[in-house]
């Protein structure tokens, strides 16, 4: 169950269109380290997570990522709003325009469509949390790369907010991993998969 809130988590007010930048920033919508992949990753992983703190963090961060996807989408929408044919041709936006006009569609900056292969749901808490921590750092790097390409404060401001959230989420996933490892056998964290081997299925002991 989700309830929509009719506001952005962080405001976006861009007054100057820029189709070239939109083509780069779209990677954080549908690219390999984008917000859509982030949300789907956490919301998929949470079902088999056996620890309530971690199920909570996956649900709540997965939900926040949807709000981040909306911020990125608002940025792209405002950067490409009412583009003239001349701007579309000059900026190289014509390749996107021919398939989607000015509609939003999740793809990477290189034009590769969004795919579930951008993320993993492995069904093993240690494995999934390592993936999640890496994902937050990869997104942080992507935002750093984007920030080097832009100097318009109207765009930089919400991008900086999103970059900062990657760091906070990384911290929370690190604490989650610690919670999981504190419960497991400290002599061998990998002796069992607590999301699979807890119901007498393990014949190896």
């Amino acid at each position, binding site marked *: 169950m989700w309830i929509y809130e009719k506001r952005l988590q962080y405001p976006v007010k861009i007054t100057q269109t820029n189709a070239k930048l939109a083509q780069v920033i779209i990677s954080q919508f549908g690219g390999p380290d984008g917000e859509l992949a982030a949300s789907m990753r956490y919301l998929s992983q949470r079902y088999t997570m056996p620890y309530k703190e971690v199920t909570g963090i996956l649900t709540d961060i997965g939900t926040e990522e949807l709000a981040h996807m909306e911020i990125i989408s608002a940025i792209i929408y405002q950067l490409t709003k009412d583009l003239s044919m001349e701007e579309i041709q000059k900026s190289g936006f014509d390749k996107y325009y021919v398939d989607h006009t000015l509609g939003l569609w999740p793809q990477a900056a290189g034009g590769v469509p969004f795919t579930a292969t951008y993320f993993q749901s492995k069904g093993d808490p240690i494995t999934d949390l390592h993936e999640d921590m890496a994902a937050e750092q990869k997104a942080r790097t992507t935002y750093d790369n984007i920030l080097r390409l832009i100097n318009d404060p109207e765009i930089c401001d919400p991008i900086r907010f999103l970059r900062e959230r990657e760091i*906070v989420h990384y911290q929370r996933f690190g604490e989650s991993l610690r919670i999981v490892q504190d419960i497991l056998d400290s002599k061998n964290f990998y002796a069992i998969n607590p999301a699979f081997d807890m119901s007498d299925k393990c014949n190896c002991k």
Partner: protein
Amino acid sequence: MTNKPCKKDLLQWINVVSFAVNDVNLFLDTHPTDQKALEFFHEYSKLRNQAMHEYAKYYGPLTVDTTVESCTDRWNWINEPWPWQEGGC
């Protein structure tokens, strides 16, 4: 009669208190017994709820649950601009 708050200021306040609630929510997920964080959550959650109701009353609902605050004979949810549009939140 209460003083009508400025739309821009009230929305900014909602963004501030909502961020505080969201951030401490994540912190509490991994620190569920932290008393200081719990107190902080309760304080800001209350402020957020008040502000959401106040906004709905004067400027239209931000959630379907607060549509009742702005009582008109029309469905208000679709009236105000969407967040990505000009004049939206």
